């Protein structure tokens, strides 16, 4: 192992930080939630999750959070995912395929352009009575 220079140290820091960033309390620019209830999984949500992971891995972004949650309540439209860009209303996408997921990642998450034809609608149910 060659001895590190200060630049090497910085490189290791940046590189590892990308992988460990999700442990920090930081603010995320975008949050992708794949709905993984039994219905979602049966409809192929695992593939959607993997597609998002692959895309995420290709970028250097540390401010995108990929997570999963339970059934979104619209089982017939699974697989589904919710994209939340910080400061904007969440958008639910339905009947996803890997291809659609990759497209959503590029266009909506990275470039900020909602893809209307895949979306169910904007907003979320009210959670407080």
């Amino acid at each position, binding site marked *: 192992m060659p001895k590190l220079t200060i630049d090497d140290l910085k490189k290791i820091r940046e590189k590892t930080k990308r992988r*460990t960033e*999700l442990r920090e309390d930081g603010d995320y620019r975008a949050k992708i939630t794949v709905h993984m209830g039994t219905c979602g999984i049966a409809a192929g949500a695992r593939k959607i999750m993997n597609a998002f992971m692959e895309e995420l*891995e290709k970028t250097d972004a540390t401010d995108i959070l990929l*997570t999963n*949650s339970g059934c979104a309540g619209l089982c017939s439209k699974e697989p589904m995912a919710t994209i939340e860009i910080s400061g904007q209303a969440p958008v639910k996408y339905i009947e996803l395929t890997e291809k659609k997921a990759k497209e959503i990642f590029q266009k909506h998450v990275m470039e900020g352009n909602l893809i209307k034809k895949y979306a169910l609608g904007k907003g979320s149910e009210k959670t407080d009575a």
Partner: protein
Amino acid sequence: MEKENEKAYRMHLMVCAGTACVSNNSFEIKDALEKEIKKQGLEDEILVVTTGCNGFCERGPLLVVQPGNIFYQQLEKKNIPHLVEEHFLKGRPVKKLMYKPPKEKSPVPVLSDINFFKKQVLVALRNRGLVDPEKIDEYIARDGYSALAKALTEMKAEQILNEVKNSGLRGRGGGGFPTGIKWEFVRKASTSNGGEKYIVCNGDEGDPGAFMDRSILEADPHSVIEGMIIGAKAMGANKGIVYVRNEYPLAVSRLNTALRQARDYGLLGKDILGSGFDFDIKIVRGAGAFVCGEETALMASIMGRLGEPRPRPPYPAEKGLWGHPTCINNVESWANIPTIINRGAKWFSSIGTDTSKGTKVFSLVGKINNTGLVEVPMGITLREIIEDIGGGIPEGKKFKAVQTGGPSGGCIPSEKIDLPIDYESLTEVGSMMGSGGMVVMDEDTCMVDVAKYFISFTQNESCGKCTPCREGTKAMYEILDRITKGEGLEEDIDLLEDLAKSIKDSALCGLGNTAPNPVLTTLRYFRDEYEAHIKEKKCPAHVCRELNTYYIDEETCLKKGHGCDMCRKNCTADAIIGETKTAHKINQEKCIKCGVCYDVCRFDAVKVK
């Protein structure tokens, strides 16, 4: 670079692998998690990470899920399949495995919302639960070794020294000597004798109930190593030694791993980071003698001699290891250094009180709901630590006293619960900061018995070199022992005070100087308990069994227990008269006051007075 770090995962499972969780089988939990994750085909999505001590040891084995900071506790192997399927696969956090505070109905899912964590301020423990202690890259990702880079390339030795001096950092091992001033002594010390200087990390933690140093070495060894290299640069030393107890195998092993990694990266050895500065560290394992935490005894032990103290001066800063100037700082002090360099003296000194800056790590143990490792800002009150962080006293019992500073410290009574914790205020009430042990006691604790326990500890650990400590602690123990047995004499309290004073004034080292503190503080705050033992031959807390009188409340025995006969069956002295379905009685002449009947009675019919 480690391969795992190349890959992105969507979820990190941070399994606590501090000693407490490990002894609660956290590695079994880790294996079960990995197995189940594989079974569900999630191994490319979810990474299991082992971390150092999370702090909430009471609730181990622990798991924190990131992102989200979801806190799972008291995990068992059988919970894992359900947890993996529900939360990690389907995204539904499992409530029944979360922490539910006593007296509350619903669990608290997020770690930072839990009272135990809320009031803590992490400086020395800044990487707690966030890094794998065996992966240097993860330490680097949390700005590790960036302070070193700054110190080696952008700062002059004087600047480092001034930063530490201005930060107001004081020794975290007990005495509270200003770290910057100690460094200055070593820096200025003449090196006529061959030119060497030594940097030592004192990890000979020995106070009963204290585990701060162990946890830091286990959880974040690189923070200590980085602190030492920075110190070495400031003082012009090239050799470092970590003195750690051999009873801390996990700390030794993680420290060894960390040293190897740092050497591989060229962060130790020759020409560190291309700066031309050379420094390396080796580990010396101590055999667990309490006195070796005293700096002169520690040095003797490192040099292969009998672990005995010697008079000071000369101080280690002038004449230390093999006659060379030596700087000895505690584990926690070293762990603070990188943050002071990174964030500056001004930032550090903004935390704490006028005379005590920064934070202090305490191991909170004893009669307290949330046992564990906590880091709090100096100046926080005892009440905040005990009631908010510690969650109060179990079983609704009353808080009686807290013992700080280990065998060298003292007992602080409940009426001083609003005392701010800093070096001065603790000394003022007769105790001391010490290394950070905090033993909480409830109403069932006998303060004479506590004093006896600590004196027996120091008596056992006394190296025997000087008479006041060797003979004096023994004499004190004998007096305390006879008081707890009901054989105390009227003059014993005066005698104890006299002895305490002479030992304090004449013992050779810190161990002896401070050994009488537990007795002096209990005499100061709980004199009535000593008097009850001596004059009335009673132990108010009913701990000293030889002073107890056991009797059976016949009505309760018959009505509630229907004369269950359990006490008679268990009495080894044949002192209980009665049979099933009749009220029982104790024959006081035969009773040997062992208390077994009291312990086995399920109906509270056996009473003590």
